[in-house]
């Protein structure tokens, strides 16, 4: 019987993209309990709706998080459009989804690099981020910014991708695919990677349902839920969309799910680029949301389902804007997965929920 020690993890830690603090109660190298604490990057962004009108708030919503920037601006714009009854043109919907899927590719490749770094495979980290550079260059050419895109507005998008640029996007993605398949093969079938991830942080299907987990974290435990299957916006025009599931339930399953989602996103972009309709890229939006009008919206961000809520009060400032991000939903799942694990596996388990704490705290 060992003595219990409390070891603090974070908020500064090389494996964490954002600050998160855990108090790990450890007995003889096994973690008995983990108590999370967040609040290091709380900026009170939801209160800024009071001073920025509903058009200007898109730029605040983008800057909630650097990795999910496109997702938040898209979800915010869709919610306000629903609140005011605005119908976005088809071409704008297609463009938004293409940028959002590119954002998903860049986020997953970033995560694969971090996951490899979490158990010490630094050269894989470098290769993943090298491929990610190509996606960021695509963003720069099509939107003008590498990380913060500023391309969504309420009513549509502000820039168009013409045919030449679209052909370039497709050719860059095909160039990435060849090297990406080598990386994926290494991550999925390499002996050392399997040694560090199989059986680590196991959560069963029942646990995942009980803790209402979302995103690839839940899909690795065979929870069949992905907002994209509802077919909203341009997702409804896809010929077939099946969420990628895995039966494993451990860190290895989560790595596999995210690896395959990158390939799925590349296929989605190619399909939508071929079907892109001509037309306007935005409709002008005038007036203000009606008093006491409410709207809610869900969106599949790279980390899971994100819920948006907006309420108007008659003026051009919204009464309330709320973003519930997927990581906050998954914190309880992370705490459960940390129960009984080895102390050396804490890095990997904390990283497999894809923590985006800036989104959680806003």
């Amino acid at each position: 019987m060992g003595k219990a020690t409390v070891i603090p993890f974070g908020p500064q830690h090389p494996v964490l993209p954002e600050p998160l603090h855990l108090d790990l109660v450890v007995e003889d190298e096994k973690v008995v309990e983990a108590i999370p604490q967040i609040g290091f990057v709380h900026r009170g962004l939801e209160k800024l709706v009071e001073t920025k009108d509903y058009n200007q708030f898109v730029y605040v919503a983008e800057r909630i998080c650097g990795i999910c920037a496109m997702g938040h601006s898209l979800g915010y714009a869709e919610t306000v459009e629903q609140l005011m009854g605005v119908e976005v043109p088809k071409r704008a919907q297609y463009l938004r989804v293409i940028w959002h899927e590119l954002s998903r590719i860049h986020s997953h490749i970033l995560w694969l690099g971090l996951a490899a770094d979490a158990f010490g495979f630094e050269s894989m980290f470098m290769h993943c981020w090298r491929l990610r550079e190509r996606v960021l260059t695509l963003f720069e050419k099509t939107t003008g910014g590498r990380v913060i895109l500023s391309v969504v507005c309420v009513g549509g998008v502000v820039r168009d991708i013409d045919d030449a640029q679209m052909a370039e996007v497709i050719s860059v993605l095909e160039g990435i695919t060849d090297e990406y398949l080598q990386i994926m093969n290494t991550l999925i079938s390499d002996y050392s990677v399997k040694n560090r991830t199989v059986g680590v942080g196991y959560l069963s299907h029942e646990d995942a349902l009980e803790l209402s987990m979302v995103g690839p974290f839940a899909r690795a435990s065979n929870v069949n839920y992905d907002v994209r299957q509802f077919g909203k916006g341009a997702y409804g025009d896809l010929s077939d969309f099946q969420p990628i599931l895995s039966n494993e339930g451990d860190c290895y399953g989560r790595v596999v799910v995210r690896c395959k989602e990158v390939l799925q996103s590349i296929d989605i972009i190619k399909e939508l680029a071929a079907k892109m309709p001509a037309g306007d890229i935005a409709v002008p939006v005038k007036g203000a949301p009606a008093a006491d009008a409410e709207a809610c919206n869900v969106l599949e961000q790279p980390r899971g389902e994100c819920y948006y809520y907006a309420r108007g009060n008659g003026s051009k400032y919204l009464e309330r804007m709320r973003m519930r991000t997927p990581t906050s939903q998954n914190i309880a799942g992370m705490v459960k997965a940390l129960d009984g694990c080895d102390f050396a596996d804490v890095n990997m388990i904390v990283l497999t929920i894809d923590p985006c704490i800036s989104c959680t705290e806003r």
Partner: protein
Amino acid sequence: MTSFKLGGMTFGSLFKKPETCQYPAEKKEAPVGLRGHIVIDEDKCILCGICQKACPCDAINVDRKGRIWAIYSFHCILCDSCVRACPRQALSTSPDLKSVTTGKFESVSFIPDPKVDKA
């Protein structure tokens, strides 16, 4: 005995061109649409102040009496709201990124009065 799966990519990295460049000796060419900094065309500006109202960060200051248009680039987030809102298309975004400075300052432009010049 397991194989070195990343061997192909590692070996190729010895000969392939790197993704990065030797900055600042060589600079990457800025693509056309890059958001670098806001530029005003003084001849087109009519000092209406719509850009000042559209800016989400209060970076633009329009002084109608003094005929001055000023932008505080250290607050500007390059959202292009002012560029889209201007009724005379006097503002545009240049792809050049500004270099670092040691002090913060406002960029002031004097707008000439077309009536005065013609007279």
